[in-house]
């Protein structure tokens, strides 16, 4: 047992290492291949116009315009391995600090959205699957199909229009109240400001999980053991609780942990609409502003989180399905 665990952890460590190296290389290559001129993007054309040639050369050096890419990559990688993520060119602060601030904002939003969409999606999927063909099923399915084809930013604008502008129930954005000092901002304020963005993210995140769970639920409902259980008079909640739950959970868990990447992606747009200062906004700023150290770090952190999500799914499989835990093949 113990040895199996060591092998398992070792394998994953190697995987994570290879993944990080590959991702950093690809990100770097993409960044270098991108047509963005860092001076133009960060200093601005009008400011460049008021600048002497000498000053421009100084700036080009700062933004690493003339350093050979391979040397640039190696020096970055050398620092990174030693735990130094570098200084953000854009924010002029250590990258770790920038990410910590942004991540703490985003994380709250993303975790809320992720949990709501998972639980809600699962429940809807189960209800819909157990009532296949009935009105509830049609309603849920219709809802999921509509939502899954709705772009997140459009939904965000819609919610903003309805709840903030017309009904004035929620703030128009930001993560804290306007003009209030940090000491006066309560936890409830933060929750209140996260409601709409989190809602947007969870509404769009629901459909995928609900639809897949529904399929699995239908499969389960048609299986021999459910037929047998029904024969004995089991139905409703008890039927689901003892015969459906674990079986249905597997696809939901896989999808849900894989969907971490989607929540990441969706949050970029949603944060933009709600002026919410998260990692998504920082990633966009870093990408458009050629902030190499920051973008590399954000990419790697996101990759690690997504990888962590998948790993968690793998571990949870074992908990949910004893057959996997015992190492036996799932039939």
């Amino acid at each position, binding site marked *: 047992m113990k040895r199996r665990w060591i092998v398992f952890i070792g394998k994953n460590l190697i995987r994570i290492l290879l993944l990080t190296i590959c991702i950093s290389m690809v990100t770097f290559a993409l960044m270098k291949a991108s047509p963005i001129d860092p001076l133009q993007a960060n200093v601005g054309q009008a400011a460049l116009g008021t600048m002497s040639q000498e000053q421009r050369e100084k700036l080009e050096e700062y933004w690493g315009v003339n350093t050979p890419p391979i040397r640039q990559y190696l020096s970055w990688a050398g620092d990174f391995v030693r735990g130094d993520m570098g200084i953000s060119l854009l924010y002029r602060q250590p990258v770790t600090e920038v990410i910590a601030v942004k991540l703490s904002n985003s994380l709250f939003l993303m975790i809320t959205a992720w949990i709501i969409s998972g639980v809600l999606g699962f429940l809807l999927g189960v209800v819909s699957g157990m009532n296949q063909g009935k009105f509830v099923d049609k309603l849920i399915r219709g809802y999921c199909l509509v939502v899954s084809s709705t772009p997140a930013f459009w939904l965000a604008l819609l919610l*903003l229009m309805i709840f903030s502008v017309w009904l004035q129930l929620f703030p128009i954005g930001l993560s804290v109240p306007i003009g209030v000092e940090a000491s006066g901002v309560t936890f409830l304020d933060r929750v*209140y400001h996260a409601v709409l963005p989190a809602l947007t993210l969870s509404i769009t995140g629901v459909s995928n999980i609900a639809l897949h769970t529904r399929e699995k639920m239908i499969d389960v409902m048609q299986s021999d053991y459910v037929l047998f259980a029904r024969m004995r008079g089991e139905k409703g909640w008890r039927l689901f609780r003892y015969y459906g739950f674990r079986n249905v959970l597997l696809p939901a868990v896989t999808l849900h942990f894989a969907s971490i990447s989607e929540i990441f992606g969706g949050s970029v747009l949603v944060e933009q609409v709600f002026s919410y200062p998260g990692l998504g906004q920082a990633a966009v700023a870093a990408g458009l502003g050629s902030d190499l150290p920051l973008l590399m770090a954000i990419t790697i952190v996101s990759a690690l989180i997504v990888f962590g999500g998948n790993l968690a799914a793998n571990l949870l499989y074992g908990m949910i399905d004893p057959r996997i835990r015992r190492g036996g093949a799932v039939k």
Partner: protein
Amino acid sequence: MKKKIIAFLCAFSLAAGVFAGCGQNQEQTAQTSGVSDEKVQEGLQESTKDEVIVTMPTTSEPESGFDPAYGWGAGEHVHEPLIQSTLTVTNQDLEIGLDLATDYHVSEDGLTWTVTIRDDVKFTDGEPLTAEDVAFTYNNCKEKSSVNDFTMLEEAVATDNTTVEFRMTRPYSIWPYTMAVVGIVPEHAYDENYGQNPIGSGRYIMKQWDRGQQVIFEANPEYYGEAPKMKKVTVLFMEEDAALAAAMSGQVDVAHTAASYSDQQIEGYELFRVDTVDNRGFNLPCVEPQEKDGITYGNAFTADVRVRRAINIGIDRQEMIDNVLNGYGTAAYSVCDKMPWYNEDCEVAYDPEEAVRILEEAGWKEGSDGIREKDGVKAEFTLMFSTGDSVRQALAEDTANQLRELGICVTTEGVGWDVAYDRAQSDPLMWGWGAHTPMELYNIYHTLSDSGIGMAGYSPYANEAVDQYMDQALAAGSLEESYELWKKAQWDGTTGITQEGDIPWIWLCNVDHLYFVRDGLQIADQKIHPHGHGWSIINNVDQWNWE
């Protein structure tokens, strides 16, 4: 195990319910308190309301902090730094006034500026502001500057407590314009994190900065000048859509907006427009095509000065402003309209007949397809614009339409900035400029002897007389003298860059900066805004008031 999972699910759905509940409570209290606030305001009015909330584009947030060395106050967005005081200030008409400085003068050779400063100014941490701090600020800027250009400064030296000497590497008569944007930082409280917690001696204290969202300023009670009327200023960073939504829901007092939203009616708000020198225009390469280092310089069609003159008067700028900017703009005739160094000879009247006559006279005859040609050269060029900039794109399209009437075929093309600079050496590009310094004029029209083909940097053009006037302007003994020389560089009666001269650039319009402003808020007179829709509006926020 099962139990745990179920317990977790239950707990979560409960928590979700609680959250939703909280949200509702919260919103109700928010609403009721909003109402009572308004009542209070109505009741007490003028005397109590001294706060204002202003939105700005997300790009206005100074990512690297409120540090002059990293561009706070200068650069793409030239503005008063509010938190810090500057030596000089620019007045309403963009001439130079004094702030910290009590006097300044420049040596005969233009290489030493001596500035005396007030002795009664304290930083908000209680320490006095001395000439040492001034010298430190400028030397620090020179060493680290990311946006401002300090290459003309050799070093700054404090000769006594209230006198500072700037030793220059070259004469630079417009140095007072640099002094108007550099906020003085305290040497004793400066480190690499200064930009995050700035200390200054300006009208406002930065109370809080929620990165990516808002900055809260409070009036500096110890301010040495007139006490600010607005005691609290909150600046929010958001996109135009969000700013519009914020105004529609009544949560902000001033919301920045664009011409495309100018027809929106928002109850309780008025549209407020500010004149700018935020101009748009395109370059016309002035030489025959030639190649160097893989870059083509020059354009066979626009190399003919008569073609450039015809284009300049063949464009109806007002029509363009009405079409593209909903009327919110002013016609532009130079890169520096209305600045003290602007030469009014740049102005021309729209005259399509004359434009056609010039083209005919120059030998550009209409071909069978309606496009003019001469000696096998077609009257055509590609007009580029930066992709993603809808205003520049629309201006390029409008230019193409208008020039088609003259028999000139213009194709528009969106390009990225990575290739735009090199391609602009041979094809016209739609640019945006507008700064509170004549340096821009210099960089656009002055030749660079050691780069490219030895002509002006952004578009091939060279005129010795223009160069000389601008060199003299930089070496001039006083600003007044330099203004005259800058004007002469534009047109001295015989040569220059105007319609009668070489006209190497065509200027189209200055884009108005637009804001939705809450009724009752009196925004103090604005000086002409430079390029960039950001901080300029609150340059004088201390003088705003509620009626």
